[in-house]
């Protein structure tokens, strides 16, 4: 080995020259080529890769939209209409970007669901999980500010209602809101800063995604059985096995995406956002984008302003401490007969919240939203902590190979031989 250079195993002289000085290729090979991955992933394990693809699509379309977008209250709406009518393929860029946000949230919601069902948040992956929650929060902030940019009625009033949430805090609330606005109402300074931040945050997200994956590559992936791989018979190299499995999921993702963009591009949006913003008239029925509806339902379930705001923020803050609320050492809910039922109910309940969040604040929706909010919090604060103590889990399989291979994968070879896999 020459002193100071990395000992590259690549044969191609150009790659080898670069790799000996900056071992990026070795790193990619280790982290995405030979990376030993549990052999029993199901399709729920596609969604991390799909989320990364979504982020890349958003950044790509966003950068090109920005070339034609004007962040000024007098021009924003018209500049978006110009993108739709006059800019070459502008309609495509915008519809991909707008529906891409929905696709991103669908993917991330399923990704989070996967983590909650298979206990991926538990030790040793707590930090990995918390970084995920940070990404989720940043995504919500980004999408919220993005929706303000076209400066339609929903943009304006959505921004007004959401920024006003901060006025609920005693004493400082009013100052915070003025500071967020840069004025005395949502206006040009607000639009400008939202555009600036909307451009910035996705790159911050990309940074946190990097940390999220770095943490993943320390602990390794969880799997549907929730037990640790014990040796080489339990894992397979990431490439070609999971690169190809991810590609299957990616094709399905693109089909759904294409159906949205080319056949029903406005289905998930709101017609009022094609009316230019008017600070003097509130639309009769303000709704946020669909991916915020469950939290909006929680906000409105509480008759008290501050209480509603606290509960809404609390509903997401709970995700941060989930690893410590669930005390059960068993990860996968496949082996937790009671938690599994409670969690499936939680899932249904989440859809109920999503549904009532989009309805006017009238009966019976108010009552339903109160019950659903109660169950949402009970699941985290009562049911999971309690079941962690009293539930009797089903027996866990001896190893992944034993559980998923026809003849149990032969005798179990223990961790001592679990060296990195040979190249695929």
């Amino acid at each position, binding site marked *: 080995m020459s002193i100071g250079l990395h000992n590259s195993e690549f044969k191609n002289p150009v790659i080898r020259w670069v790799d000996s000085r900056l071992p990026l290729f070795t790193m990619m090979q280790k982290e995405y080529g030979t990376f030993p991955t549990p052999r029993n992933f199901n399709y729920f394990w596609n969604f991390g890769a799909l989320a990364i693809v979504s982020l890349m699509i958003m950044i790509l379309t966003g950068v090109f939209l920005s070339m034609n977008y004007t962040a000024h209250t007098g021009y924003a709406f018209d500049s978006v209409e110009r993108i739709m009518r006059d800019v070459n393929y502008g309609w495509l860029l915008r519809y991909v970007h707008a529906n891409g946000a929905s696709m991103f949230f669908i993917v991330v919601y399923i990704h989070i669901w996967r983590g909650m069902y298979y206990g991926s948040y538990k030790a040793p992956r707590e930090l990995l999980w918390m970084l995920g929650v940070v990404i989720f929060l940043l995504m919500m902030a980004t999408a919220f500010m993005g929706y303000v940019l076209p400066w339609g009625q929903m943009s304006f009033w959505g921004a*007004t*209602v959401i920024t006003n949430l901060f006025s609920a805090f005693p004493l400082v609330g009013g100052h915070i809101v003025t500071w967020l606005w*840069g004025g005395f*109402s949502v206006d040009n300074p607000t639009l400008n800063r939202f555009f600036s931040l909307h451009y910035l945050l996705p790159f911050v997200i990309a940074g946190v995604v990097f940390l999220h994956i770095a943490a993943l590559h320390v602990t390794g992936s969880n799997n549907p059985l929730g037990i640790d791989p014990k040796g080489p018979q339990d894992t397979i190299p990431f490439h070609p096995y999971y690169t190809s499995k991810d590609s299957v999921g990616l094709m399905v993702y693109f089909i759904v995406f294409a159906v949205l963009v080319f056949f029903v591009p406005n289905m998930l949006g709101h017609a009022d956002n094609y009316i230019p913003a008017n600070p*003097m008239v509130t639309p009769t029925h303000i709704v946020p984008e669909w991916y915020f509806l469950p939290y909006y339902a929680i906000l409105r379930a509480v008759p008290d302003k501050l209480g509603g705001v606290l509960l809404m923020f609390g509903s997401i803050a709970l995700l941060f401490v989930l690893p410590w609320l669930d005390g059960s050492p068993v990860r996968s809910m496949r082996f937790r007969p009671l938690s599994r039922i409670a969690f499936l109910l939680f899932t249904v309940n989440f859809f109920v919240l999503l549904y009532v969040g989009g309805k006017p604040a009238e009966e019976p929706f108010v009552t339903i939203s109160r019950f659903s909010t109660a169950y949402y919090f009970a699941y985290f604060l009562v049911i999971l902590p309690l079941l962690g103590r009293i539930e009797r889990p089903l027996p866990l399989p001896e190893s992944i190979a034993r559980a998923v291979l026809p003849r149990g994968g032969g005798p179990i070879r223990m961790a001592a031989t679990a060296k990195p896999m040979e190249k695929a």
Partner: protein
Amino acid sequence: MADLATPPGSAPPAGTAPDTGGRRDFLTLATTAFAAVGVGAVVWPFIASMNPSADVLALASTEVDLAPVPLGQAITVMWRGKPVFIRHRTPENVAAARATPLSQLIDPATDESRVQKDEWLVVIGVCTHLGCVPLGQKPTDQRGEYDGWFCPCHGSHYDPSGRVRKGPAPLNLAVPSYTFMTDTKIRIG
């Protein structure tokens, strides 16, 4: 605490006091405090730049001629990017507002404290819940259960004094600062 930095047995260099833990703690604290002040001084301009700028603050007053507003009707004017409701109240409106006992109010305030001339109510037309513009300015609008305003967003009701009577809004519609320049002309702000 014993001095760990000086090897045992060696005397401190001439002219320096013996290095005690207290002195070291002081240096650490002083340096940290200095750095904190520095960071604060750097962060401050960034935070402050997001507050309303001088030109936004300068746009802060509006003059309104009240003469064309008939009794019982209302107009909406724009002030600081927000709607301001000006209602020409009927004597019945005023009587109803004044007859309401304070104990029935969510945010108790007398009607007298909210107006300068009995027949003119001037309030900021922004719901104190989450900032929607309540209905009730046009004769065809719904005015809510107290014949004032009704906020469609989450169902708050206001009375003819702009006081919240029902719903999630915690406070009465705000009264901006304004002055009567003549009997029929006001300046808001």
